[in-house]
């Protein structure tokens, strides 16, 4: 029971991360390595402000921090034409120092005595809040991104990811669209980090290691279930994928003989396999054609 509830809570919190990853990875079709940096940026900013007694402001500031990180990557990529992967790596590396600075020079910060959101809600015990809050945030932001990507700007961003040439030839500002979507994507990633800090009751910079792969795994698992049909379903399946990923993790750590530290390797394998499937399928198809050709010849 505890396992089920815990995975549900984490699945929802990391589901917000998956929404962000879906935007960069699927809508823009640009894998964004800023993610690890912006996740811990949200995490550290949120922890620092919560420790000062401002848990709500912590979330807002965390999101703003993520958006700023995304803007940097976006500007490096568009205005200065640096390779997308490299732009992300640059921002991520730079953020490492920034995050340490935000946490006062140490790699972690405890919030045991700080008033996290989960402790201060009226009418709800801490345990209840730990389920209710993640659910509210995940649903709220799910609705917001779905709405956003049906507005004119949101559709312009989708078109940029779908056919950049066409958008360049139309009157939409391609670079502006890209920068904006990196902001939105990383704001969500950072919000996920900001909530996780308060949920766990501590911030640890190393908790962002491999977080991009976690997000990708969620998106891919979701697509395996729901297929790839439009953004609305895409966002829903990203959250569903995140929930399922957490259950897999929980089961794996409980029942598998592997030690917990093997988890990242397992996630990486899941992602690699899922991404390899289309190519493997195609090769099998070609092989079948060749065999067919021979028998007919």
């Amino acid at each position, binding site marked *: 029971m505890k396992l089920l509830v815990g995975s549900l809570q984490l699945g929802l919190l990391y589901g917000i991360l998956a929404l962000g990853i879906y935007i960069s990875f699927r809508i823009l079709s640009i894998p964004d390595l800023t993610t690890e940096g912006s996740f811990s940026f949200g995490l550290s900013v949120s922890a620092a402000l919560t420790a000062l007694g401002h848990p709500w402001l912590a979330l807002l500031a965390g999101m703003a921090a993520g958006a700023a990180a995304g803007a940097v990557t976006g500007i490096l990529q568009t205005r200065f034409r640096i390779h997308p992967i490299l732009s992300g790596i640059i921002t991520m590396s730079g953020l490492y120092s920034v995050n340490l600075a935000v946490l006062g020079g140490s790699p972690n910060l405890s919030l045991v005595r700080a008033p996290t959101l989960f402790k201060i809600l009226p009418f709800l015990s801490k345990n209840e809040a730990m389920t209710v809050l993640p659910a509210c945030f995940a649903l709220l932001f799910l609705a917001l991104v779905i709405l956003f990507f049906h507005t004119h700007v949101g*559709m312009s961003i989708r*078109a940029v990811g779908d056919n950049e040439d066409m958008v360049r030839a139309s009157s939409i500002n391609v670079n502006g669209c890209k920068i904006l979507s990196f902001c939105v994507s990383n704001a969500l990633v950072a919000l996920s980090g900001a909530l996780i800090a308060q949920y766990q009751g501590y911030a640890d910079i190393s908790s962002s290691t491999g977080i991009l792969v976690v997000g990708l795994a969620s998106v891919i698992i979701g697509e395996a279930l729901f297929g790839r049909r439009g953004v609305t379903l895409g966002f829903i399946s990203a959250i569903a994928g995140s929930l399922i990923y957490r259950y897999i993790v929980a089961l794996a750590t409980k029942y598998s003989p592997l030690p917990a530290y093997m988890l990242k390797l397992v996630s990486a394998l899941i992602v690699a396999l899922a991404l390899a499937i289309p190519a493997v399928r195609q090769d099998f198809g070609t092989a079948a054609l060749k065999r067919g050709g021979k028998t007919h010849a």
Partner: protein
Amino acid sequence: MLDIQNALKVFEKGTPSEHTALNHVSLHLDRGEFVTVIGSNGAGKSSLFNAICGVFLLNEGRILLDGKDITFEKEHRRALTIGRVFQDPMKGTAPHMTIEENLSLAYSRVMARPLSFSPSARQRALFRDRLSEFGMGLEDRMKTQVGLLSGGQRQAVTLLMCTIVPPRLLLLDEHTAALDPATAEKVMEITKKTVEKDHLTTLMITHNISASLTTGNRTLMMDSGEILFDFSGEQRRGMTVDGLMKLYSVNRHRVLDNDRMLLM
């Protein structure tokens, strides 16, 4: 309307592969003119369009649209008033978005209300109306992803995207060349109707010489980055494909390279 003054475009200037794509071209278009453009491969037809759209900047010369100097204006700013359809049906639409989403993208670009939801019910009704004029049954498939349509259907959607808000200038770059003959004819028919409806000022590149003489009201022939002939009125009415070929060889002292041009 459109005024191109002494446009010069040299690619790879100063290298051994230096190439003059536009050689001091001047062109004036009046409002409502429907001009066809012909010329062999590499004559500079697409380069002329690229210059007008701002895909690249000119080495020399100026471009004015409705009296406004747009020589240095950004491509996406010019696209507000210039519509363009390419030969490749894949180029003009977003394949994973629906017909109505593509149209709405094109439609709302003019009134910049970034956070409005689109398409609105009013827009949908308009799109349905305009699509049904094409007689392709597209009005019943507005929620279909454009990537699932045939080349001709995609070109029709692209054409509507470019004209649903009438542009000051419409540029068609061999937009039927990649289609099978029957479809090409259908798309050409739609094109003529659309241009006539709003009296659009249009430049249309075609490889079909005889069609170029019967479509629209003026014909340009480009060669080696220059506008070689400019026919309209009586002179154009009297022109035949043969006459044009003869005129070309007399002028250029060589035979028109016509591998890709149709001489029907």
